[in-house]
């Protein structure tokens, strides 16, 4: 999906010499350059880097609503990008994450909420139901450091089995895996309207299941652990 556009941008950036090329920047560096300089080429790299991430989530939400129009999907992808620049790029300026996957995770949640809001509103128009979810409430994905200490591939299966055997509610399992496997923060998970949970509720579920899993698998808790 990069094509000549990406190549041309990279060549231009490389030719610029003094500043590091946009394509070589980390996610947070690129974001900072976009916000600080309002540089068009930085924004081009931002779009190039994340258009597929956003489009994929929008596509999946669209299909869940039985919508297959590429026109609507394209509009929602564009809306997601424009949402980022609303109010002097407020959501991006407030974004904080120390994790490399933090920004893509944040964009995924934002795109999913925006798309769900769109389809819910469309449906509500037909059925007279009110819209309840705000896409801008989505916050960054974050820390999965604790799980990285574990032997993931084998342990994940064992934990999954454990959660099934202990008859853990499916919604709680989803919260647990979104947090540990997909790196979403408690606040980002709470922003998924389909789950219908508050941030405190999500944190409570994570804490309880984490204790159970640690106890079952004899895992020592790390000294610090951020849940938000």
């Amino acid at each position, binding site marked *: 999906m990069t094509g000549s556009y990406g190549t041309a941008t990279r060549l231009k950036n490389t030719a610029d010499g003094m500043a590091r090329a946009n394509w070589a920047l980390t996610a947070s560096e690129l974001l900072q350059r976009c916000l600080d300089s309002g540089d068009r080429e930085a924004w081009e790299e931002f*779009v190039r880097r994340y258009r597929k991430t956003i489009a994929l989530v929008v596509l999946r939400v669209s299909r869940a609503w039985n919508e297959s129009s590429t026109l609507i999907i394209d509009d929602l992808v564009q809306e997601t990008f424009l949402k980022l620049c609303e109010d002097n790029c407020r959501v991006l300026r407030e974004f904080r994450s120390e994790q490399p996957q933090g920004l893509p995770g944040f964009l995924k949640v934002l795109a999913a909420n925006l798309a769900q809001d769109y389809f*819910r509103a469309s449906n509500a128009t037909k059925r007279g139901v009110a819209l309840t979810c705000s896409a801008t409430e989505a916050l960054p994905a974050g820390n999965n450091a604790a799980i990285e200490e574990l032997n993931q591939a084998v342990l994940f299966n064992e934990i999954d089995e454990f959660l099934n055997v202990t008859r853990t509610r499916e919604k709680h399992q989803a919260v647990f895996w979104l947090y540990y496997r997909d790196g979403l923060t408690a606040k980002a998970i709470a922003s998924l309207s389909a789950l219908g949970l508050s941030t405190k509720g999500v944190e409570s579920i994570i804490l309880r299941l984490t204790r159970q899993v640690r106890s079952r698998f004899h895992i020592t808790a790390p000294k610090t652990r951020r849940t938000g």
Partner: protein
Amino acid sequence: MFEHAIGFQGQSSHANADGANRHATLAYVQGLFSDQLTEEEKKILASLEISKDANAERLARQLTALCRAR
């Protein structure tokens, strides 16, 4: 109806929900954010306007203008 499709409505999210719903819910939420693409998804993504470089450049210009217009 979206909630119905993913099993989050009413009693379907409770512990006594049937096995199919239980796994469908978990699979949906995790699948939504997965980075793995099916062949069909790849085709659809490639057909989107945003996948065309000229359109992506146009969008980037819009974003730049919005960012500068403080």
